[in-house]
């Protein structure tokens, strides 16, 4: 049953710590900050009695599940951790949704967090156990569609730059974002190249962060709050590594295409551009966001640059994307990012997004893509 979980589970509380280079915070500090905001939001003042299970997502945990259990003093119940590249937070959320939907638990916690800035390096670790598949730099991996896409559809670095400019603008309006600075297309084009065609501003930063959701069964949601948000769909899809996929065309990312199909089937969505009001998509690099517009069916393949130019995906556009500034301004603590996107969608649907509030948004999508990339996680949440 493709719609088995549609609208069965409600988000009744969410929290998110300030993302950034949180030098003076431990992972536990960030987890406590986000979880207690979520408890307060859900009206839970006795979490040790109310939370029946915990689903965590983290790519760089220092201890694992104990990090979360110890921080929140949630013992004597299941605490599990998943890893699914950049879709880790979304996958933790997915396990939480399924655990509630099947009736096993009434109330569960989803905790996404990561603390990459404790590693003393400015980028991902380079692994050198082998000789194949090097260099392992995400900017290099995610740029592999650029040459072919530009050649086929005539897009260029300026089109990518406008995405960075948009997200930087949105980020100035989000209290919990890391970067709060307007930039210009010229700034983006002049910045040092990281991995062509990505300059510094085409890349999201690494940052520390944690975000938490409280989930319950739809029938119990009213007991927490009136403006709860329903989970309409949640999906994960894997695709072949584009570095060995024999049929890859370098014009799209297959994980997104696969996950979108599942997500729209679950949610019963036929025309995503019309039926989705806002979207938080994985802008690890500007090109990732551009391809995502098309891979999610928001616009025709090859037409993204026209929509970028006309502002379709700007805050005031027809389908605002990355309303909080995205990974571009929050950075990307891998396990936290998917849950942070849900936090933004939850706040937007409740009308609590302050100066970046999108009017009359009732259906919101979130999207993560990760690995080389090989995995995509997506959710659709909606007002009842």
């Amino acid at each position, binding site marked *: 049953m493709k719609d088995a979980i549609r609208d069965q589970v409600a988000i009744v509380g969410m929290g998110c710590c300030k993302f950034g280079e949180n030098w003076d915070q431990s992972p536990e500090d960030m987890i406590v900050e986000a979880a207690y905001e979520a408890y307060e939001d859900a009206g839970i003042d006795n979490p040790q009695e109310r939370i029946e299970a915990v689903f965590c997502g983290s790519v760089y945990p220092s201890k694992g599940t104990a990090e979360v259990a110890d921080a929140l003093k949630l013992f004597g119940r299941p605490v599990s951790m998943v890893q699914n590249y950049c879709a880790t937070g979304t996958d933790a959320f997915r396990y939480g949704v399924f655990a509630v939907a099947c009736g096993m638990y009434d109330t569960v916690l989803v905790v996404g967090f990561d603390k990459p800035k404790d590693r003393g390096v400015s*980028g991902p670790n*380079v692994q*050198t*156990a*082998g*000789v*194949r*598949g*090097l*260099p392992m*730099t995400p*900017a*290099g991996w995610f*740029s*592999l*569609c*650029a*040459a*072919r896409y530009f*050649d086929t559809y005539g897009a260029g670095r300026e089109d990518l730059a406008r995405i960075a400019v948009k997200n930087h603008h949105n980020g100035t309006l989000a209290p919990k974002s890391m970067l709060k600075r307007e930039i210009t297309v010229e700034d983006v084009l002049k910045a*040092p*190249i*990281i*991995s*062509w*065609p990505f300059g510094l501003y085409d890349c999201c930063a690494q940052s520390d962060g944690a975000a938490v959701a409280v989930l319950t069964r739809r029938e119990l949601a009213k007991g927490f709050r009136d403006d709860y948000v329903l989970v309409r769909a949640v999906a994960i899809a894997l695709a*072949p590594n*584009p*570095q*060995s*996929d*024999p*049929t*890859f065309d*370098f014009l799209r990312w297959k994980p997104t295409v696969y996950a979108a199909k599942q997500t729209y089937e679950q949610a019963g969505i036929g025309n995503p551009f019309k039926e989705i009001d806002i979207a938080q998509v994985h802008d690890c690099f500007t090109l990732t966001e551009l391809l995502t517009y098309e891979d999610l069916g928001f616009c025709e393949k090859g037409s993204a640059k026209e929509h970028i130019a006309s502002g379709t995906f700007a805050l005031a556009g027809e389908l605002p994307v990355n309303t909080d500034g995205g990974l571009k301004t929050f950075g990307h603590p891998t396990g936290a990012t998917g849950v942070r996107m849900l936090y933004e969608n939850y706040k937007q649907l409740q009308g609590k997004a302050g100066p970046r509030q999108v009017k009359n948004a009732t259906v919101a999508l979130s999207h993560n893509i990760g690995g080389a990339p090989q995995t995509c996680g997506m959710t659709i949440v909606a007002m009842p």
Partner: protein
Amino acid sequence: MVSETVGIRSYGAYVPMLRLPLAAIAGGRRGGAGGGERAVANFDEDSVTMAVAAATDCLRGIDRSSLGGVLFASTSYPYKEKQAASVVAKALDLPRDIVTADFSGSLRAGTTAFRSALDAVKAGSARNVLVVASDCRMGAPRSALERNFGDGAAAFLVSDADAAVTVSQHHSVADEIIDVWRLETDAFVRSWEDRFVVEHGYQRNLVDAVHGVLRKAGLTPKDFAKAVFYGPDARSHAAVARALGLDAKTQIEDPMFGRLGNCGAAFAPMLLIAALEKARGGQRLLWASYGDGADTFVLQVTEQVERLRDRRGMSWHLARRAELGDYDKYLSFRNLQPSEFDRRAGAGVSATVHYRDRDEDISFRGHRCRRCGTMQFPFQRVCFSCHAKDDFDQVRLSDREGKVLSFTFDFFAGSPDPPLIVTMIEAEGGARTYLQMTDASPKELKLELPVEFTFRKIHEYGGTPNYFWKCTPVR
């Protein structure tokens, strides 16, 4: 006596693309250094990778399964203990049931390995033996030796049939002399005073050995179309030519000082290939090499030499050049410059992973699905296309050409020569690989660019040369 049919069936050479101007070594002071340049290995090359390249040139069109041995000669192989010939054989995807041996320690190692191959084939212990000499020696920074040296490799297939060159006589002498040396703990070659080394080492041994081979063969210097012999420098080389009574204008194969440099154990073999590129059937050549004594050979060129005109050899490689004008970059290529990011740091590769993956990573084989024909790299258990399980043939990719499907220029991945050019390549037949491109400039990159594969050091983590394949534009 020497067999009439045993000899050189094929040859191949390799000279790295980069040339270091001698003036750059002298710090821009043209006076001391003069003009000229030397061949210098890229940061991802060493004597093993250059040997593989020369051997690949040599084995063009030859059934690799017919080889019975690989003899590797070098004074500059990275390992003190662990064989190089076996790495070369694996990178060439040769059968396992072959003899492999390293010849080292002497500048004469290349010709000595050649003579051993000759003996083995003559004795019937193997029908085809690959001899590959390769050197990448280091002189101390800004020293005369650094200016003098060059990097390169040469390969010969010694066979019992189809000889392009037969060996009608050979003669060797051994000598104990402290002229040039390098201890286990030395990074750089050391040398005794020039005039002593040249007069009592090089000249005396080479002349003695040539006289020996002429006596055995009943020939005089006038009987040779060309004399091809090692020399530590242009002046000493010319002095030997004079001492032997050879005609400097017509009989001497140009030792290419100021273009190539003294390529150590590979030098005399490389010069012989340069001579064979111009040689015609029926010509007689004198070939000699020096190092702790000397090896000499009387060679007879056959009509079969015409069969080898498609070899890249020396002339193709010498014509393919790019200047490395930045001496600091050269120092960092050779790990002679302290760096924030030590390329040799870290735990290095997992020997067990290397062991499991060597057919893919060293022999560069991919899989072809027996059911649907889909080519894939690395090896799969389940086919990407038709999902057949464990139904694949292994296919060598290294000798195929490929084309660029996509690329990026990565300034973030550490490289001594940024940016790192990273490509997605589809080999002829379909296997796709994510490879670094080497010996290329970002300006050359475009979709569908034809490439070939080249065996290189992918990194040096753990202090070991960790080899894999890269691509380079077809030129």
